[in-house]
């Protein structure tokens, strides 16, 4: 017989036990997703069962791996694809952070989406792509080399597009077009950078200190170009200015999709990609030595300020949140680009913190829109009295975004600031301060209006049928048993708001995102 490629895995170890878990994590959303496509529109129960079953399974599997990774176990599955280039799924501490985030938030978002989309058309299609989207995200999280990363990154594009255009309106189509134009451009850049890099290094496997140091002296120019290409490639999804154009447009999508885009999947995948490129492709010292981190930090700073400024002037609540995302995600990039252990911890931990806080905000915005038809900030006067739970959650998350202790956002900003000082640069502090002020400037008026202003419109009373199809009329029981909106819509933001409070409060306890980020800094980036 003809010899196959010499793969580094001996044939008897094609599927070692360590390889099974990553594959199962993929399958736990892939299989339900594919099955859901073939389900009839009316089989709500089966579909919900599949969704929640998949989400819970994934969470359990990730939890299992969490223990393993903490004990020093590594999980790896590979499939030969090109000559000397495999598809590799690998779980280390960094991937696990992202995995936990996406698996956890997927569960919450699924619950929310089930409540949100009741009785709306094309649900099978929606949930099918929803599951595939998460599959792509965990794939991104687990990718062990740049090739695998590209695979899942593009899959993410393909599976989120139907979600963005789900409503099928003209605005949705335009948003989808913008999203595609941006991501296709990104895909081209990413592919170009990757192939070029491969021809120079002969490998694409992520390594703790990157894998370009051997050619750093001989191929300076190309390496800088490659860095630019790769960052442009992932920067679109991370919504770096000036590649952010698609994100505000994509707000036409249903609320669970926005939540998913902003907190779990797309934007996060982009930010995670930047982390990977800086740390595991170039190596942060090498990147600094090539003079690449400075411009990256500058781009991040510009994005942070620009996003905040634009958010200030949006009346549409979701658009304001979208620009806030543009700004907040670049904290992660900033943390990475400052070059220093504490700053990187701040960046990495913000990956989680921002996700949890931002998803809360989007859930709440969705609740307002679905229950009361509120889409604009100017319509929010007094809404806190009508929907106290929702606005309570919203407030916690918003304060966290501003950086009020002890909510999670504070921890990130604290570490970012410390990291900047440690690295001996001061300007990030000004950026952080300015951005926090701007955050306050666009969030506090909302809170003020919601809690302290008189309602300007007459909303239907809770539980009396809301004019939309989604608030579940409950009947005339006691006030506390009569929720302000459907349970499925209310519980998720409450959970995530509580989470963002708790991980801020208990930031220094073991297994908190912060502690885990410190572990990552130690293990993956070889910081002390």
């Amino acid at each position, binding site marked *: 017989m003809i010899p196959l490629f010499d793969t580094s895995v001996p044939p008897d170890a094609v599927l070692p036990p360590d390889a099974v878990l990553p594959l199962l994590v993929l399958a736990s959303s892939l299989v339900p997703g594919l099955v859901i496509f073939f389900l009839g529109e009316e089989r709500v129960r089966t579909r919900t069962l599949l969704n929640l079953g998949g989400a819970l399974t994934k969470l359990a599997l990730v939890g299992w791996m969490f223990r393993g990774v903490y004990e020093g176990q590594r999980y790896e599955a590979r499939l030969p694809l*090109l000559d000397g280039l495999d598809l590799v799924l690998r779980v280390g501490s960094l991937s696990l952070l992202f995995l936990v985030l996406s698996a956890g938030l997927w569960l919450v978002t699924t619950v929310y989406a089930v409540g949100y989309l009741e009785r709306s058309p094309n649900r099978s299609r929606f949930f099918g792509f929803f599951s595939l989207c998460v599959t792509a995200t965990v794939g991104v999280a687990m990718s062990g080399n740049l090739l695998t990363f590209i695979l899942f990154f*593009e899959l993410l594009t393909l599976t989120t597009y139907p979600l963005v255009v789900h409503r099928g309106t003209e605005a949705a189509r335009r948003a989808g077009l913008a999203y595609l134009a941006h991501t296709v451009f990104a*895909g081209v850049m990413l592919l170009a950078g990757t192939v070029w890099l491969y021809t120079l290094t002969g490998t694409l496997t992520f390594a703790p200190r990157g894998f370009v140091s051997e050619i750093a002296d001989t191929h300076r120019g190309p390496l800088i170009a490659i860095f630019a290409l790769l960052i442009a490639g992932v920067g679109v999804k991370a919504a770096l200015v000036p590649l952010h154009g698609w994100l505000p447009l994509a707000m036409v999508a249903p609320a669970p999709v926005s939540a998913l885009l902003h907190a779990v999947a797309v934007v996060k995948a982009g930010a995670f990609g930047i982390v990977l490129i800086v740390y595991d492709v170039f190596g942060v010292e090498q990147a600094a030595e090539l003079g690449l981190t400075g411009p990256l930090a500058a781009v991040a700073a510009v994005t942070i300020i620009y996003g905040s400024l634009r958010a200030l002037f949006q009346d549409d609540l979701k658009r304001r949140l979208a620009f806030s995302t543009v700004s907040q995600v670049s904290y992660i990039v900033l943390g990475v680009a400052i070059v220093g252990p504490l700053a990187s911890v701040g960046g990495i931990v913000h990956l989680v913190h921002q996700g949890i806080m931002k998803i809360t905000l989007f859930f709440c915005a969705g609740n307002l829109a679905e229950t009361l038809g509120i889409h604009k900030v100017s319509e929010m006067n007094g809404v806190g009295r009508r929907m106290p739970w929702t606005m309570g959650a919203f407030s916690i998350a918003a304060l966290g975004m501003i950086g009020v202790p002890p909510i999670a956002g504070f921890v990130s900003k604290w570490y970012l600031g410390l990291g900047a000082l440690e690295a001996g640069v001061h300007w990030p502090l000004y950026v952080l301060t300015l951005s926090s002020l701007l955050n306050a400037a666009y969030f506090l008026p909302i809170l003020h209006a919601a809690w302290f202003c008189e309602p300007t419109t007459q909303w239907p009373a809770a539980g009396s049928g809301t004019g939309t199809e989604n608030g579940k009329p409950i009947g005339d029981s006691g006030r506390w048993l009569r929720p302000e909106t459907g349970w499925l819509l209310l519980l998720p933001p409450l959970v995530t708001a509580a989470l963002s409070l708790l991980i801020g409060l208990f930031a220094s306890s073991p297994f908190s995102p912060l502690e885990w980020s410190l572990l990552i800094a130690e293990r993956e980036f070889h910081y002390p």
Partner: protein
Amino acid sequence: MALAPSSIEWALAVVFLPLAGALLCFLAPRRAAALGLTIAALTAASTLGLTLEVVVAGTQRTVLGGWGAPLGIVWLADGLSVTLMAMTAAVGVAVSVYAAAYFRDEHTERAFFWPLWLLLWTALNALFLSADLFNLYVTLELMGFAAASLTALGGSAAAVSGAIRYLLVSVLGSLFYLLGVALIYHACGTVDIALVAACIGDAPRPAVQAAVGVMFAGLMLKTALFPFHFWLPPAHGSAPAPVSAVLSALVVKASFYLLLRLWIDVLGGGGRWLAELLGLLGAAAVIWGSVLALRQERLKLLIAYSTVAQIGYFFMAFPLALAGDSAAWTGALYLALAHGLAKAAMFLTAGNLMRFGGHDRIAELDRAVHRLPLTLTAFTLAGVSIMGLPPSGGFIGKWLMLEAAFRQERFGLAVVMLLGGALAAAYVFKVVGHAFTPAVRSRRERKIPAAMEWSALLLAVVAILLGLTLPMIWPLLQIGGPAAALSAAGAATGAVA
């Protein structure tokens, strides 16, 4: 007869089985579909047998008539040819299944589709097997006639006029090729590819250059390389869906294969100027074809222009392979294989949409795509391969070619390849986007048999999965060493350059 068929018997089967099938179908038109399907399955099985034979025992030579070169004709089955035959078989089976459903109610078309299609298959396999320049001319003509007749089966004036145009171009291309064969015969005294390759170095240069020039011109015309692509969209856009699938997926590949054979086996991979010219035309084709595809308002024409663009990629491998980079050839071949499967799937889905809605105007497709999720999925998956997204076969091909381009720092070519991918994404999503609009049920819709949806979907899935099979196909392509010999030859050229 021995229990295990020998390579001669497999080779005989892949040519003579579809031939016999065609004759039978023509003699018994009422049973044509059943006969045709059976023969398609048998032919595919024989192709598999031949492929395995080549995998196990290496290149297979069959001396026809026992004379051998230079007096007689020789069949040669090496990795390259069996790979293409295998693709033909895969597409062939799917198209046969599809056609059985597609032509079920059209008596005349059914009666003529089957013999013509099986004869086309005969011609393709004969072409892939042949190692004799003149015999290749006959197979080229056979292929061209069968393809033109199949195009005309569409029945519309557009189809007939497309068929005429195609026939004229095909005959002209073959005549150019034949003129080249004549010159080569008189320079070398043989038409056996191996013997010609041995003598070509000592032959008078002007004669060889003129021969190569006219042969390549003829084959470029038949392959529809820009700017000779003018005939392709009208023909492929107006033929019946299964025919378009076959034309785009296989027929165009056959003349490209022949070009490649000449380049590799006869010219030994040399010829810098010609290679650069072909690369340039290929790059122009990628851009031009993609832009035109994007501007089409009819689905089938969009797909046809996409073929024009994809053909360009194949030719961009010529300059890249000059430096001895075998990745370029493997990439181009991979692209060709993936394109064959994906493009066939696309045309089949276009057939479904037309059958369903009665038209193929892209702007009005939303209803149809809405009601045919499987078809849409097939189209999208095929599109993924055409765009070159991982892990499809198209991605692997594009990756390998990009790798070669970057390694040789031919950034211009790399940019064109990448741009072509982006444009492909644009035109694929131009169609797919219509799936997500709120649609009203059409009054004119017709039921689509499951066979028509599933055959397209399966082809598309195979195009995607092809991306995972490089570890198997790479060594197969090396058998008989066209790629290996080429990288050696190319290395020599590169060293000189």
